[in-house]
């Protein structure tokens, strides 16, 4: 699949994010819009995976873990659009009796989700465990894990970073969504922890960087990351993104982290996002 086709899917996924959060009158559009290129590239180009039937153990498949679970509307859209479940189910997001919980869960049996996330800082540890199980099983596929940059403030993240570096978990690719925003403001305002690159490097990680909203760069960097697996280091990609990417009034602010667009705002947003695959 070429970059133009991936971009078309991304535009549809962004429409799904806006429509889901609007219909639920809640949810997290900002980070979801920012990470759209990454998830589209992973599920439609990079990962070897089998949407149906979905297998929990993911043997001989690449696996993806979403540690910053609040960007669920993005993940749900990508899972549905890549065949894990019917796209009509997106209309149930955050509603009673739905499999599409506010934050991702396995409890209702949603295909594609392997562990609950939402309480931050836990996903990287789980991804490491899944990567270790692949090694024990002689399975050469790769485990991907997306974390937020605000999430880097959780202590458990650094336990996991330490472990993966020390144990050379080289079948793991972590991606950090560096959008410099969290609920109470920018990273600099809330907890100015400085540059992530030397922190990861000092723990023994191979650090790559990419523009997370440039589809070509995303695909190329993910391919470079894949080529770097199997060496002596785990791989992390510092992915610069703009929170709210693709909808002008949502960009460059933390204000749309956890606020849904109303009907009027939804109209304006959808006018900026081409319907390429058909709305659900």
């Amino acid at each position, binding site marked *: 699949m070429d970059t133009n086709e991936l971009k078309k899917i991304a535009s549809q996924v962004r429409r799904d994010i806006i429509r889901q959060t609007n219909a639920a009158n809640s949810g997290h559009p900002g980070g979801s819009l920012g990470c759209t290129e990454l998830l589209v590239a992973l599920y439609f180009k990079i990962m070897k995976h089998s949407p149906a039937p979905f297998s929990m153990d993911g043997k001989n498949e690449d696996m993806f873990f979403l540690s910053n679970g609040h960007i669920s509307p993005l993940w749900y859209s990508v899972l549905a659009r890549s065949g894990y479940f019917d796209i009509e189910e997106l209309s149930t997001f955050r509603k009673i009796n739905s499999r599409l919980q506010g934050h991702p869960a396995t409890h209702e049996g949603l295909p594609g989700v392997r*562990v609950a996330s939402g*309480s931050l800082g*836990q996903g990287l*540890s789980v991804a490491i465990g*899944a990567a270790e*199980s692949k090694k024990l099983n002689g*399975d050469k596929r790769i485990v991907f894990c997306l974390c937020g940059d605000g999430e880097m403030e959780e202590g*458990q993240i650094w336990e996991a970073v330490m*472990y993966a570096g020390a144990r050379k978990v080289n079948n793991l690719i972590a991606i950090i969504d560096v959008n410099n925003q969290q609920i109470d403001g920018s990273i600099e305002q809330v907890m100015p922890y400085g540059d992530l690159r030397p922190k990861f490097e000092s723990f023994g990680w191979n650090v790559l960087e990419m523009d997370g909203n440039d589809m070509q760069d995303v695909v190329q960097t993910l391919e470079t990351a894949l080529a770097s697996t199997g060496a002596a280091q785990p791989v992390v990609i510092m992915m610069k993104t703009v929170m709210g990417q693709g909808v002008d009034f949502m960009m460059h602010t933390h204000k749309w982290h956890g606020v849904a667009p109303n009907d009027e705002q939804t109209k304006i947003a959808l006018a900026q996002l081409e319907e390429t695959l058909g709305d659900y």
Partner: protein
Amino acid sequence: MLTEIMKTSEVKEKKDTRSGFGAGLLELGRENPEVVALCADLTGSLKMDAFEKEFPERFFQIGIAEANMMGIAAGLAIGGKIPYTGTFANFSTGRVYDQIRQSIAYSHKNVKICASHAGITLGEDGATHQILEDIGMMRMLPGMVVINPCDYNQTKAATIAIAKHHGPVYLRFGRPVVPIFTPADQKFEIGKAITMREGRDVSIFATGHLVWKSLQAAEILEEQGISAEVINIHTIKPLDEKAIIRSVQKTGCVVSAEEHQINGGLGDAIAHVLVRNNPTPQEFVAVKDTFGESGTPEQLMKKYGLDSTDVIEAAKKVLARK
């Protein structure tokens, strides 16, 4: 099931329950290649060294990072492994409650959380390490199985048995050397209470180290003309409600006995069953809403009201309320 036992004074052999865990884990490792073990820098204390030595590729030294250990265990379970985590009960529960809740319990991961040095018999290290709230925390989690075996043999049998249960399990055991009074060849059945001694006047439901104390108490009560039934509730969740109700319908009063806070533990679980099915006077042998302190296990059991004399006193008190 009535287990034939000798008089408590005739039981000579003693071992710590954590060694039962270590022995069970090693045996299980030989039987089941999917079993893996994780430890947070307490391999010797948890008696996991034999497993580590024999199966180095299936043993994960995590370092002093319990939250990460719970997450990695969840991930290993996703890949089809049966992970056994090992650290002190305090660091197996309170320290990592949210990790257990989200990544293991809510996600229904097949992780066995194995917790040593539970309760006040941890002893000299003091209250920072003496967790007395762990049963409460764990039994509140939907789908979590909670087991507190009473001696070496039962801990070993439970360690092996829980591998066959698909889902999260909390297995609680301890540090002190205590009598071995259950059979070495026992079959451990999750959720099935064991009648250790039959009686007519009072039902004593005990778990963990208090089973032995309750058997000692029952012998003294017998000398005083009181017939006490002693039931070993090794599984606190799921609770053997039928066994509890059956015994209480015969005796008409209850003593619950546990090395745990009075709030949230076995006593609460039993009271909850009885108040719905068969309201019955009950007395609680448990720690009375306070933290522990440094001391020998024996001193602490006495000071915090967890000795056989406390079981006897509770039995007499509840008999008077019948």
